[in-house]
């Protein structure tokens, strides 16, 4: 990945910046209208400040990919245990240059409803604003967004039909005597070593083996296949108001820990500016609890540099059952945090505007080498 980055940055310096975005024909902004009660028909009346059942989210994805056809496409990722299709949205502006990928998933834990709500909000914000808003527009020059609005679909549906506080998937174990694997303990990273249970009745059951669950397999295989291009892996949860860096399975720190903390703290500051909400930043083992088999740790260990878990509002007053009245404020502030991370990631790999900015060492070496070879 590094030589490729070096080449990209070199190109960025040598080629004048003439590839401005097309600011013409800005898409008319549609204000979100509160739905009046009857089932909503079009994207114009889709409410981003309510919680939606899975059927509505499936429909929303189709409508997003229809309305924003050039930029947003829906893709199949895999099947859940109960044989439901898992889809992600790819947001990508067609261009010749190779893109890096930002991955975001929501709802790996069924009861954390604010997370899928945020994924939908995020998609809406990017698509409604990329043409008018230069900050967002520039991301799409070099980045593709891959958003999985609900990872644990079976579990999410179960929280709507049966048990609002269900967390796990709905896979069957022990001859149908117990149900569900904690998908965030099922990834292949120090699997089931700590902070997880081998007992299928437990809420942190790690599964029958690493990546035993179809949902985990679907995400793992896909992310693994794209790992050279993925620079940022964000997994959204609730609650606790935390930005977590690797690791949960050990108190040891990742090689880029300080940078992750710095970027995370900047994101928490940006978040706080919006509505005053306090987030804490730290490694999972330090400020949360020990866990093994988490997607964030796995993503970091296969080489994705910026890997974070977000634990959204609140701090326990309502916990998982966050009032819908707080969706807007939560999404607005979280958006600021994510944009801040994206700014830093973008700066790190593509910024060549002004003096005093970061130029990766490989670029400088590359320049030196080419200069030396000229003489």
């Amino acid at each position, binding site marked *: 990945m590094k030589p490729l980055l070096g080449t990209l940055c070199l190109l960025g310096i040598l080629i004048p910046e003439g590839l401005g975005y097309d600011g013409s024909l800005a898409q008319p902004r549609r204000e979100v209208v509160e739905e009046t009660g009857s089932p909503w028909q079009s994207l114009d009346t889709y409410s981003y400040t309510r919680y939606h059942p899975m059927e509505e989210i499936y429909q929303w994805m189709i409508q997003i990919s229809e309305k924003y056809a050039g930029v947003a496409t829906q893709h199949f990722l895999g099947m859940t245990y109960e044989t439901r299709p898992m889809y992600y949205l790819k947001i990508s502006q067609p261009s010749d240059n190779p893109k890096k990928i930002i991955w975001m998933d929501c709802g790996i834990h069924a009861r954390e409803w604010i997370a899928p709500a945020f994924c939908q909000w995020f998609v809406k914000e990017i698509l409604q604003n990329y043409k008018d808003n230069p900050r967002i527009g520039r991301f799409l020059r070099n980045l593709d967004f891959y958003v999985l609005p609900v990872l644990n679909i079976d579990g999410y549906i179960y929280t709507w039909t049966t048990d609002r506080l269900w967390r796990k998937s709905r896979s069957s174990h022990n001859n149908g005597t117990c149900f569900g694997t904690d998908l965030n303990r099922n990834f292949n990273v120090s699997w089931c070593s700590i902070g997880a249970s081998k007992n299928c009745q437990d809420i942190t059951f790690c599964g029958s083996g690493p990546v035993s669950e179809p949902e985990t397999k679907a995400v793992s295989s896909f992310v693994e296949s794209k790992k050279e291009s993925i620079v940022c892996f964000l997994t959204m949860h609730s609650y606790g108001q935390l930005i977590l860096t690797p690791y949960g399975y050990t108190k040891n720190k990742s090689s*880029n820990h300080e940078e992750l903390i710095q970027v995370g703290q900047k994101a928490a500051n940006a978040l706080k500016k919006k509505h005053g909400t306090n987030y804490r930043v730290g490694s999972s083992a*330090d400020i949360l609890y020990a866990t093994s088999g988490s997607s964030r740790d796995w993503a970091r260990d296969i*080489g994705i540099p910026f890997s974070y878990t977000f634990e959204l509002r609140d701090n326990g007053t309502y916990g998982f059952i966050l009032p819908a009245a707080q969706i807007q404020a939560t999404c607005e502030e979280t958006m600021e945090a994510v944009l801040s991370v994206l700014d830093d990631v973008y700066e790190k790999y593509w910024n060549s505007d002004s003096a005093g900015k970061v130029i990766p060492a490989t670029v400088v070496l590359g320049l030196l080498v080419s200069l030396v070879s000229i003489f």
Partner: protein
Amino acid sequence: MPPAVSTPPAPRPGVPRPSALLLALALALCLAVPGLQAAGPGPGPGPGSPGVPGAPPPGLLRQAARAALHFLNFRAGSPSGLRVLAAVLRGRAAVDARRTCRVDLEFTAERYDPEVADGRLGRCSARVVFRHQKPRPAVNVTCTRFMETSRSRREDFLLYKRAKRLRAPLGATSIPNSHGWIDPSLRPIWDLAFLGSSYVLWERTTQTLHYYMAQLSSVNQWKTNEDAIDFDYMVLLHEFSTQEIIPCRIHLVWYPGKPLKVKYHCQELHTAQEGSGTEEGSAVAPTQPNNF
């Protein structure tokens, strides 16, 4: 656990790596280069604990603060005066040979009800003693008031009057509902449920376990014909470190200004847990819990 030490401020993030600075010096063309972090796999080397060696684990101070506030909420017996943790300011911990852990700390607290939260913080200091992984931490806590006593008495009495007029939905219920909605007319039920839960939350908090009230799942009894409110209900508690949901049945008797009476029983999980069974907490007792 280490002997008593003061907790220094949290470590600052984002220090440039020495190797990167050397690189910057060596290459004349370089601008200041913050370290290009290697994107390789695997955790970096280093010792376990965060922060300064000898400092109490950061989680422990928060545990102590929570235990202190649950205890305070129970003792105060005031549904309008319920407080939750805002931030830990400073603290230290000491452990003796029997692994009893004594925590002294200062923290800020804010009003529980976010709708009326006005950003005002109360300042608290507390001593909390955890017996090794056992429940019922001993608590000695004082907080500055964020509301005058007369006002909280008035609000409690208003709540009491609303509660007396309230016809509660008996039987299985979901408060809040799945979307986090609590009917304003049922608000007194939620506030009293949390007040009663405070006793349970205090008792069950240990060095590692802490709980939140997730949902009210049933109203078994809501008697208001006599002076006191007699409320028998079930709540679902969420334990944070295990992520488990624990159903508890709670029976409280409340009259504004009088000590709160609480009895409870929580369903234990299939895996062996600290038994807590049925307890009676009466604030008629002296300021220290009965068994200390």
